[in-house]
């Protein structure tokens, strides 16, 4: 499975699988062929913790090149842990769940 890796503004490594990227493009067509913009939202976007889930965060960034009226991208990232197969150590498993084009007040 192909993955794209990106670091947010605080250096956290986050990945997006091609399976999830395909799903995003099919379901949220305003982001079709906008992979760089989605990854850039994680790199440079404003980060907000979800009030009900401390492991889930939203990244938002204005993007004025989307088809109107969309003018921003919202990306949901979950920060989890998984155990390594060889030694059972827990390692971060931070991945993009989905992304949407949205309309925000200018």
């Amino acid at each position: 499975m192909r993955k794209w890796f990106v670091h947010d503004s605080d250096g956290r490594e986050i990945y997006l699988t091609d399976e999830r990227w395909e799903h995003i493009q099919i379901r949220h067509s305003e982001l079709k062929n906008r992979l760089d913009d989605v990854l850039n939202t994680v790199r440079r976007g404003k980060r907000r913790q979800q009030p009900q889930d401390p492991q889930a965060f939203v990244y938002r960034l204005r993007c004025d090149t989307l088809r109107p009226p969309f003018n921003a991208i919202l990306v949901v990232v979950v920060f989890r842990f998984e155990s390594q197969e060889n030694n059972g150590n827990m390692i971060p498993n931070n991945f993009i769940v989905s992304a949407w084009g949205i309309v925000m007040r200018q």
Partner: protein
Amino acid sequence: MELEKKELKLSNGKTAWYEYDRDGDVLEIIFQPAEATGAVELTESIILRFDWGSNEPLSLSLISFSRLLQANPYGEVHFQLLADEWPDEVRDKIWPMLQKTPLSEFLKLSGYAPAHTHQIIPMATIKQPYLMPQAA
């Protein structure tokens, strides 16, 4: 990425369906499989996609879904609507949408009046959790 899917019968006789991504804990309720021409954050955890021309809702996405429905000692949880972040022309579309089916079958509007202020803060409660998948 596995999606749990289920059809939902709405009170107007139409069919919607949900897709639940258990790994990501995102639930999407789809009313029409059309291409959205507008979308907003209704609350910090709910995204509404809609048709800009017809003002018809197309889907609701609920982020951290299993947490949104967790019981609390005070009864229903009311989530603040992010109305201040919606452009004026979007507000004019959203309010009527929220007050009729299908959105009114999933969200109940209310207002919160904080002490020592005249401001009323718009809120929404998630309805019909019995239609939804079990919490992760």
